[in-house]
């Protein structure tokens, strides 16, 4: 009976309002954070840092962004990748055009650009709902990518439309090794995740969820749907924008508008659905799952069938298994990995009794 809240009493509302009211959770969280910031940099190979951990972190941030919009505020969006693009190109242009621009400021300004664009494309949500809105967000997806390709100013007139991120330097320290990039990403993501967690458990978050669950009722109790929806769009796009900037600066180094395709938007959507809608932790779990799964499949296929199966078939088999697993997970737990985790905890709480 390791996981028990019995015996933990809360004497004040402050204690009850904490992120982790249960002691085991808090310890667990600190342990995980310590592991990822202290142990991982020492043991992880460059491949793990560069090709797995950094993207997982960045996608987690984007997934948090989408989760705020879709999970918490209930506005289905298929344009997250485009908002990432705005963030990436925004940060790039701030760095490029303003001398001595601090990186963190550029990151945030990039995010703010995305937030503005997000608000613009969020306006229709005041009238449009559900899948209609989802398809409408595709307008953002296609339009933004088109505009970034079309107007060379955004990519500083690069013939190929590709931008290469400037060197990242904070207070004179250059972040140019995988480890330092990883730690920077981790720090940014951890801070923003915490902020997001705070947002969703206070009034702002409650008004988002209220609008999501029943917007007429929300309005009747005094929540203004316009403010709630637009703030969700703004915050969500901000997160996606920051993630996009990190994508350019700490992950790929160079990005092109077409890289922020509809496919990427779907991938992020998968992350929140598989991870768990309306769950910050789910965003992390989902991002890890969706980044790792294809890699795992690819490696597994090679290990199992190298040489014995035509390469084309192997690649298609990967695709089939990927699709199949997605469906499988949705069936097993439509509420995502975060819910599985919760059920696990509930069982643990009851353990060893079945009910």
């Amino acid at each position: 009976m390791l996981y028990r809240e019995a015996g933990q009493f809360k004497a004040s509302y402050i204690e009850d309002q904490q992120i982790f009211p249960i002691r085991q959770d808090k310890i667990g969280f600190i342990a995980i954070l310590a592991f990822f910031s202290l142990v991982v940099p020492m043991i992880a190979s460059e491949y793990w840092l560069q090709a797995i951990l950094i993207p997982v972190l960045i996608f987690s941030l984007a997934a948090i962004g989408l989760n705020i919009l879709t999970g918490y505020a209930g506005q289905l969006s298929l344009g997250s990748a485009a908002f990432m693009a705005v963030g990436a190109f925004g940060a790039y242009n701030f760095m490029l055009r303003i001398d001595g621009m601090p990186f963190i400021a550029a990151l945030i300004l990039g995010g703010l650009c995305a937030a503005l664009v997000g608000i613009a494309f969020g306006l229709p949500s005041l009238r449009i709902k559900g899948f209609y809105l989802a398809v409408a967000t595709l307008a953002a997806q296609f339009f933004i990518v088109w505009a970034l390709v079309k107007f060379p100013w955004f990519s500083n007139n690069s013939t190929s439309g590709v931008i290469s991120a400037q060197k990242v330097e904070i207070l004179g320290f250059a972040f140019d090794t995988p480890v330092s990039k990883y730690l920077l990403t981790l720090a940014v993501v951890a801070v923003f995740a915490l902020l997001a967690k705070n947002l969703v458990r206070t009034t702002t978050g409650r008004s988002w969820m209220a609008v999501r669950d029943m917007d007429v009722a929300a309005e009747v109790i005094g929540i203004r749907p316009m403010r709630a929806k637009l703030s969700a769009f703004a915050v969500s796009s901000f997160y996606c924008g920051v993630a996009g900037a990190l994508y350019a600066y700490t992950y790929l180094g160079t990005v092109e508008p077409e890289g922020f395709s509809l496919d990427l938007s779907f991938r992020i959507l998968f992350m929140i659905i598989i991870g768990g809608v309306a769950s910050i932790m789910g965003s992390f779990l989902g991002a890890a799952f969706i980044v790792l799964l294809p890699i795992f499949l690819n490696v597994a296929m090679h290990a199992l069938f190298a040489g014995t199966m035509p390469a084309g078939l192997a690649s298609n088999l990967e695709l089939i298994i990927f699709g199949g697993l997605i469906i499988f997970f949705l069936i097993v737990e439509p509420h995502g990995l975060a819910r599985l985790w919760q059920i696990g905890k509930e069982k643990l709480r009851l353990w060893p009794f079945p009910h």
Partner: protein
Amino acid sequence: MQFFFEVLIGGLLSGVLYALVALGFVLIYKASGVFNFAQGAMVFFAALTFVGFRELLPGLTGLDPEGALVFWMAFVLALGAMIVLGILTEKIVLRPLVNQPHITLFMATIGLTFLVEGIAQGIWGANVRGLSLGIADEPVEWIMDSANMLVSKFDLFAAALAGVLVASLALFFQYTKVGRALRAVADDHQAALSIGIPLQQIWAIVWAVAGFVALVAGLIWGARSGVQFALTFTALKALPVLILGGFTSVPGAIVGGLIIGASEKLAEVYIGPFVGGGIEGWFPYMLALAFLLVRPEGLFGERHIDRV
């Protein structure tokens, strides 16, 4: 002016082709509230299966590869494959997800997209193939002669086909018992179950019909641009049509298609040059979006009911 009409007519006819793909979406959405993202992949799968059989059959039977017999045999076999696909989808994907939020089902269909794409290419290979339906994609001569205007025979044929499909499906939904049951299921899965509507059967039927529509769309599109992976992208052309016409309306698909097709072509020709062209990717979406601001449920879509 002649040019304007040429573009307009060309656009309208292309629009009908978009509608053909949109129709598949409407069918499934109407009957189960599922936004089936896999429709594009189904179009690809259907077309690929058709040409696959068409290549295979002459070798097995010794029939003339270009003959009508092989064509229809391949058609029937491909249709069979689509029906099997529909039934399997119902069994494996939808049945366990009854009564789940729509977004979950939507995601499942994206998963299905990968699955179908993988299976299609796994079976038939990644080769790009040509497909000829025996109707030349040429201008109709007398229109060309009399008005110097270009109207494609092939497009006219496709438009007529789409028209027939739309009309019969619209009637089916509105006036038959099964059609009514389909609409009921879309509203409330659990209530439909409670009065004994066999969800399984209903879904299998719709998916099979959607498979048939996908096959028709696949043949037409395949004949236009070859049977290749890019057929899955026809879905992206169909989506703005769908929101403009309304997710739940069969006639909406065709009207939406006409509007989108025509305005997209006119915009490309008359607005495109000012902004550097290539606006066809997003213009239909923006148009549909602007339209939704006026009518949030599309032209003929059902209104979202929220009464308190």
